[in-house]
Every structure is written in C-alpha cells, then in structure tokens.
C-alpha cells in the first residue's frame, strides 16, 4: 500500500509537469487552431532563464537557498519573460501565416522549435552544456501513510491544480475569457463584434509561455539539470497528454497530463523498459475508442 502511494506521488509529480505544458498546447489549439510544436521549448527557456536570473540574484543566496520573496521575484520574472517570448514568437512567426493553410503554420512551428533549441546552443554564454539548477525551494520531507513526500512535490502538484482551476475560471468567467471563447468559435465574427483578435491571441500565447515557465521551474527543481534540449521530449509527451485529454479542452489537458505521468510511473514499476512507451500505447488505444480524446467533442472539419 505504501509503495502504491509512493508511486502515485511520483506519478502526480511527473504528471503535473505534463499537465502544465499540455495546458499551453490546448489553449493555443483551442483559440488559434494550430499546434505550437515549439511549446516544449518554452519550458526550456523558462528553466534556463530561471537559471540565469537566479545567478543574478546570487547575493541573496544564503546557505544554498534563496529567501521566499526572492524566489517569488525570480519566478515572476521568468514567467513574464517566457510569456513575452511566447508573444514575440507568435507575432513574428505565426501571425503572418494565420490565414495561410494550416500545414504552413505547423511546419513553421517545427522550425521555431529547432530555432529555439539551437540558437541558445550557439550563444557562447549558454552553449550546449547541461547545468545544475539552483535550489529554489528548500526540500522538507514528510512521511505520509508510509510514503514520503517532499515540500517541492507538494508545491508542484498543488501549483498545477491551482493554475488549472484559475485558468478554467479565467476562460469561463472573465471578460477576456469570453473574448477567447468567441475567437475560438469564429475569428472573423469575433472581429466584427469589436474583439481585438490579435490581442486575444497574444494573451493566449503569453499565458501559455508563463505556464511553460512554471512547468520548467517545477521540472528543474525536481530533476536539477537544465540544457537546451530538455524541452523536446517533454514537449512531445505533453502534446500526447493534450491529445489524450481532448485537445482544446482545459480539463482534458489536466486529466491527460496526470494520466500520462501516473501511467508512466506505474508501467515503469511493472517493467522499467516498458515505462517510456506506455504513453504512446494509451494514446493509440484512446484514439481508437474515442478519436477526439477523453474530454474532446468531435467536430466535423470543413475542408
């Protein structure tokens, strides 16, 4: 029982990273109707950015950790920065292609992803070397029904849930949320109603980037190694999580992320070589049974 609980905690820990990233995929898909393959790299930018921002604040570093206030400042700067990069990527690479066939935007997204991975690698002060991530959260270990859980894990899991609830409320209850839903239904009609479509899409990318930064910080806090390629695999898996839950649906992204994380951990427990492939198997099975994903609604696409 305690082992089961322990694995569940590991699964939630991994799942919360997938979920936070999947939220970004799903938001962009839901509102703009494109798959932003560069989203995993926003996570890398968030984590690497945090690494450099934390370096700027080293004078506040006492005994290897930072005071809570400084940690909050670092995280907020990283979120704003990554969000801004998200907005920039959209404005430069995606906006000019918005009314072109979808395939063009998709290929551009792959290109942006390669650029975001390789450009920092070419910069001399970043480079390809993996770096060790600074300790932002002090790790306190709690025992819980025979399983151990750390403060970092609690922060990660609860942060993912809080963010999801917040996002759900934002989209469904706020004014900007109503605008987002309107743009997602029909861009042209929304524009006719006086909604600034560009602004709504920029905000969507900003939120996606900021969430990816949070995911990156969480991920790097538990697995303290950051490098320019860290986002590519995580991005792929989170994309699967988003499709699994029904791409375009916020609750679905969350559910998909946790399903991916937990199933990966439990599959590893059964057979460690099998764990990595399990996400793909689940994806195939679910798409066979329910092609729109768990929460997704099947819509006929007009060609």
């Amino acid at each position: 029982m305690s082992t089961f609980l322990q694995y569940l905690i590991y699964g939630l820990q991994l799942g919360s990273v997938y979920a936070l990233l999947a939220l970004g995929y799903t938001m962009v898909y839901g509102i703009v109707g494109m798959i932003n393959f560069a989203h995993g790299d926003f996570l890398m930018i968030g984590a690497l950015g945090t690494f450099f921002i934390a370096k700027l604040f080293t004078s506040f570093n006492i005994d290897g950790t930072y005071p809570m206030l400084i940690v909050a400042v670092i995280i907020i700067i990283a979120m704003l920065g990554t969000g801004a990069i998200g907005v920039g990527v959209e404005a430069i690479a995606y906006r000019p292609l918005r009314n072109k066939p979808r395939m063009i935007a998709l290929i551009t997204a792959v290109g942006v992803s390669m650029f975001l991975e390789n450009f920092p690698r070419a910069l001399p002060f970043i480079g390809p070397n993996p770096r060790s991530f600074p300790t932002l959260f002090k790790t306190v270990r709690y025992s819980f029904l025979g399983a151990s859980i750390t403060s970092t894990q609690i922060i990660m899991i609860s942060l993912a849930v809080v963010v999801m609830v917040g996002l759900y409320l934002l989209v469904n209850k706020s004014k900007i949320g109503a605008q987002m839903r309107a743009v997602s239904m029909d861009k042209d009609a929304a524009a006719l109603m006086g909604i600034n479509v560009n602004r709504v899409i920029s905000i969507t990318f900003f939120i996606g980037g900021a969430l990816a930064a949070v995911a990156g910080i969480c991920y790097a806090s538990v697995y303290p190694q950051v490098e320019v390629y860290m986002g590519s695999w995580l991005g792929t898996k989170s994309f699967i999580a988003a499709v699994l839950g029904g791409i375009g649906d916020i609750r679905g992204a969350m559910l998909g992320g946790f399903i991916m994380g937990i199933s990966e951990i439990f599959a590893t427990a059964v057979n460690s070589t099998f764990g990595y492939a399990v996400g793909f198997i689940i994806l195939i099975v679910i798409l066979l049974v329910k092609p729109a994903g768990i929460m997704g609604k099947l819509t006929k696409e007009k060609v």
Partner: protein
Amino acid sequence: MRKYLSLVLALCMAFGMFACTSTPATTGPAAKDTATTDTAAGAPAVETLKIGVVCPISGTSAIAGKYITHGVEVVEQELGGKINIKGTDYPVQFIYMDNEASEEKTTNVFQKLIEEEGVIAIVGPDMSKCALAAGSIAQNAGCPVVCTFATNTAVTEIGDYIFRACFIDPFQGQVAATYCWNTGYKTAAILFNNADAYATGLTDAFISSFKALGGTIVASEEYSGSDVKDYNVQLTKLAANNPECLFLPNLLGEMPLQIQQARAVGMTCPIVCGDSADTPEVASVAGAAVEGVVYVSAFSAESTADAAVKFVQAYIAQHDGESPNSNAELAYEATKMVVYALQNAPELTRTSVRDTLATISNLELPSGLITVGADRNPIKGAVIMEYDAAGVSHFVTAVNPS
C-alpha cells in the same frame, strides 16, 4: 517592411545553424605552406603530419569534449608545432573535429578526416558507442585509431587498426566489484541504462566478478535511454532489497540525478560509480548527496609519479588553473601514444604507425607504465576515488590488473 524583417530573421536562423554545425578546426602553428616552401627551395620535402582528434566539442557531452581538447593541447604545446622523427623536424597539425557524442556524426567526421584531410592517425572518440559506429571506417581505410575513453570490449575487436588508451569495461566492472568485496559489502544492487553500451558492459562485468568473488546481486533495475530523468520507481524497488552497496554504471547525463534521487528515496548504502563520475559536474548536480560516492578512475591528479606531476602542472598552467580529469589525461595519453608511434615507426605510413602502436611496451605516461597487449588493449592500473562533502574527489586506493 515585413519582408526585411523575415529576411533578417532568416539570416539570424541561418547564422544559428551555421554556428552549431561549424567545427572549430584549429590549425597548428606550422601550416601546410611551410612544406611547400621547403619543396620550392629544393630542400627535402617534409610533409605535414596530420593527426585527427575526434571528441564531443558540443552537444550533451560537451564537458568531456572540453577536457579532451585541453588534454591534447598539452601535447600540442609540448611539441610546439613540430615533431622530431629521427633527426628531422616534421610540421604537425592537430585537426579537432566535433562528433557531438553521436554515432552518425562520428562516422561522418571519420570519413572526412581519413578521405579529405588525409590524417595519419586519429585520436578519439571518447565514447564506446561512437567508436563502435565509426571504427570499421578507419579499419577498412587502414587508418590507426587510438580511442581515449571507449571502454567497451567490442571496440578493439573491430579490427587491428583500433587501439585505446583506457582500460576496458570488464576491467572497470571488475575493479568496482573487487573494491566492493574487499571493503566488505556482500550484497549489491544495480541501476543501469539498458540502451547504452557503456552501462551494459560495466554491469555485465560487475555482476560476473562480484558473483565470482562470492557476493550476491540482490536486485537489478534498468531504464531505457538517456532521455529518462525519473528513476524514483526503480530506486524505490532497489531500496526495498536493502543492498549493502549500489552500483550506478551510467553516463554523466543520468548518474548525478540518480545519486540525488537514491538519497531522496531513502537509500543510505554506499554508492559506487564507473569512471563517468570523474567530473565536477557530478557534485554540482547531485549536491550534498555526492558525499561518500566512490568511483573507478583511470587517473588521479593527486598521483605523485613524475610523469603525472609533470602533466598536471603543464595542464594547470596552460588552462587557467583547471585541474585535469580522466578525460583530459586519457586524451593526453592517447596522443602521446600516437606521437611515440610516429617517432618510432620505420616509415611514415598508416600501416607502419599501426605496427609500432601494437608494440608499445612500458611507455612512461602519467597513469604509469603502459604496455599495449595482444588484443590492442593497454595493460595499466586503475584508481578508486571518493567524493568528500565539498564535492571534491580524493584518491582512495589503486587497483592493478590481475
């Protein structure tokens, strides 16, 4: 306006890609021109000797590549751009090639070095998987290769042109097993990457040696690929078996996280690693968990042998106080072996250099006296190192081939 912007961005991108793929090819002080001028002046034609150096200058193992380059640079400085062979000074040029720790890239740069650059010998690569992928190219072309850190047995089995400066995996696994047994551990657990030749090679050797000594492997867990960063499940399962020591024969991208996670899941037993743990990066990622971790190493900078002291001093002076690790030391030894072969070969041909490499006997190098055995593996010793609380490793004991 938009057109200009996209043009600028496209250029920016192109620059980025160029910067990634371009390989820093340093030219020795003596360039090719010297040779041509000599010929023109009627003096005996002295050809430039080219030595290829293949290592991961960028990519996931760029740290190893940095140490390797620095190690070879020590030889380069010792030589001062020329190599004295039987009274004649030949200009020498080291061509550094980036293989990004990938099999395909290694194959490409081997082809380039052998066919286009016409090198007389190649130093590197450092990884078994890269050497296994590219070795047959050199073998078929008849170009001698001295790998620096490719410890897998199969590497020199490719053919009689493939040598190495390091000891082989079985010996390393055997050293780790012997050390564990001698220290008094009767049971051991292993976590290894089943998609990596280095990790599986060490694991097999450790298991057979440890069992032969009378020990028991209580549990063994695997994971597939270096993309995996979460080992909590495997470590939890290993911890349940209460082993007296944990063997982590994995590469630098994974093993520090494993050390950290092993302590986090509550494993308190001693941790033993392979020689990949021989870099300061381990301590900075694993943090406090690194204290007490021991590993097998080819070389200790704390060694007091004359050749070792000389090498360490030259290295530190040349590289702003950076201390050499095994990667640097083995790169130095591999290059020295090639230089020795060049100086003693009857003719300056690839075949002749190969034949001379195979007869190296009691050559004095920083790690001790090296003899190249019949299977082209060097006969040399290993050391056991231990990390202290500050993340600095210290010499524990030396283990010799048996």
